[in-house]
């Protein structure tokens, strides 16, 4: 079940809200949330819910064990065992086919490639549980004694299948003691509807255009079509993922939880370093706190540490070499920015550093989109005019003209401009009125588009 489906919005969500707010005690509310989260997951993953439960059990007991022997060598064994078991689950389900393919290729063997389907959200909840046991080991949080409470943290449906990666230390207190107020619920409803609009009205349309051009053979693409295709993918992936994060944050608020922000207008950045401080913040901070700093950060072996983090960031996104190249590409860029380019970028006019960032991000998305590297390089050749393709296209002119308002609105919404202007122009009661009218329009329009639409995949579901 995805958030942007009629089944979720008009059946699952109202039943949940009614049940949740019809009970008073926090214990009952948590029980309702746990049952509904497990139902939500089982609906989309009826078999592999077992993996989620096993992962929950492993880390619950490891947490207790590490907490009990905190500060001793036994705790160290516990954390090593927890990390090995968690990563084994991830490798078995996500990377086994990739590993076998590469072994067959390198050693010319013919091992049968395992046909394992990826359990939805495994990359997200595995990282959440790793962060929990590591934080217990570091003494940052107390081990959770109640299994149902721990399972609620692991399986909570707002963030379960596509993030953000919520750390136990951030919501442990909220699970046990939280209060909801009108302002928080109103804010949550607003965030959910904004996220829904980003996904249904912007990401899906941009995605259909991206597919239209990027799935074509590069021999039949014009230069402008190639640019349009990759720009639409650039918009799609941002609105798709940030829309999902908005919906997750909004749903969290409706049920009394405050999650940290996961996006902060990444396309207004002026360097790759800044881009990754604004894009998928929960993943970046996970790798910083649990991999980069423990490896030594920038104090020793900085290049090696950076490359390790970016190799992992790449492979986390998918078991394919293009994701590894995409990750390392950003690793090298960030290293170069630290050592040389960064100082130059700061001195350059803002417009030039913005253009630099957009070009490097667009090249990055090309590697991200095409699992076949030959296709990626052929596409880049067309993009930068090295393929002797025609420049313009009548078909593209019609598509742009037919969707010009949407394209302009989507581009503006990638920047904080609309938010800042909106807050300046609409103040007080007028702002509240605009908010209500805007949200009603977005919800009804999204409902209409969902009734009429079959194209509705979430890109980050495959991670």
């Amino acid at each position, binding site marked *: *079940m995805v958030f942007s*489906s*009629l*089944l979720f*919005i*008009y*059946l699952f*969500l*109202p*039943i949940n*809200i009614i049940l949740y707010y019809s009970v008073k005690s926090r214990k009952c509310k948590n029980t309702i949330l746990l049952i509904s989260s497990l139902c939500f997951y089982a*609906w*989309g993953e*009826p*078999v592999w819910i077992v993996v989620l439960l096993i992962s929950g059990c492993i880390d619950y007991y490891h947490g207790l064990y590490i907490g009990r022997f905190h500060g001793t060598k036994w705790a160290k064994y516990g954390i090593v065992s927890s990390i090995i078991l968690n990563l084994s689950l991830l490798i078995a389900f996500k990377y086994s086919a990739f590993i076998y393919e590469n072994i067959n290729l390198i050693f010319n063997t013919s091992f049968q490639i395992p046909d394992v389907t990826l359990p939805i959200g495994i990359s997200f909840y595995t990282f959440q549980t790793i962060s929990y046991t590591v934080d217990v080991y570091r003494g940052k949080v107390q081990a959770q004694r109640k299994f149902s409470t721990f399972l609620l943290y692991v399986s909570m449906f707002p963030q379960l299948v596509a993030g953000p990666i919520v750390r136990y230390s951030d919501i442990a207190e909220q699970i046990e003691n939280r209060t909801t107020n*009108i*302002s928080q*619920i*109103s804010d949550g*409803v*607003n965030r959910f*509807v904004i996220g829904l609009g980003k996904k249904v*009205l912007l990401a899906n*349309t941009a995605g259909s255009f991206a597919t239209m051009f990027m799935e*074509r*053979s590069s*021999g*039949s693409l014009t230069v402008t079509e190639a640019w349009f295709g990759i720009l639409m993918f650039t918009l799609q992936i941002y609105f798709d993922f940030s829309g999902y994060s908005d919906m997750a944050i909004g749903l969290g608020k409706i049920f009394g939880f405050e999650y940290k922000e996961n996006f902060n207008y990444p396309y207004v950045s002026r360097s790759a370093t800044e881009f990754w401080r604004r894009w998928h913040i929960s993943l970046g901070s996970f790798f910083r706190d649990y991999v980069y700093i423990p490896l030594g950060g920038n104090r020793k072996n900085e290049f090696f540490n950076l490359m390790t983090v970016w190799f992992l960031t790449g492979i986390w996104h998918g078991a394919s070499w293009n994701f590894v190249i995409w990750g390392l590409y950003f690793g090298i860029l960030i290293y170069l920015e630290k050592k040389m380019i960064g100082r130059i970028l700061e001195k350059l006019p803002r417009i030039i550093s913005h253009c630099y960032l957009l070009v490097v991000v667009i090249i990055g998305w090309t590697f991200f989109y095409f699992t076949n590297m030959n296709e990626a390089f052929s596409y880049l050749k067309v993009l930068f005019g090295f393929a002797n393709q025609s420049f313009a*296209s*009548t*078909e593209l002119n*019609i598509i*742009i*003209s*037919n*969707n*010009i*308002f*949407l*394209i302009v609105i989507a581009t503006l919404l990638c920047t904080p401009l609309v938010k800042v202007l909106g807050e300046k122009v609409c103040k007080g*009661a007028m702002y*509240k*009125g605009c*908010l*209500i009218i805007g*949200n*009603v329009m977005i*919800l*009804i*329009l999204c*409902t*209409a*588009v*969902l*009734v*009429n*639409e079959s194209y509705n995949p979430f890109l980050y579901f495959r991670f």
Partner: protein
Amino acid sequence: MKNSTISEMIHIGIMVGIIIVGFTLFFLLPKENISENEKRQLTPFPTFSAESFLNKSYAQQVELYVNDAFPFRGQLIELSAFYNDVKGIRSGTDEIQIYNIQK
């Protein structure tokens, strides 16, 4: 009560109201079997079986059923078509889509 709290309550009331009305009407309104405009049979409610649930086909069929049985479906499709038209500038009433032919 503060003005901001009242407006927030109105906001929540309207938004939750729309969802609850959609939810209630979904169960109350009679369902059609055939769509005259689309010239197709609408998705029936699937029969449950352990096999169909485990292979996810039951969940997919239920989602299709909800889409096809949603209240005011015809009007919502018209609204969606209107939204499609106002996304940009369209010249004339008859449109011709030009496709590239791969050589």
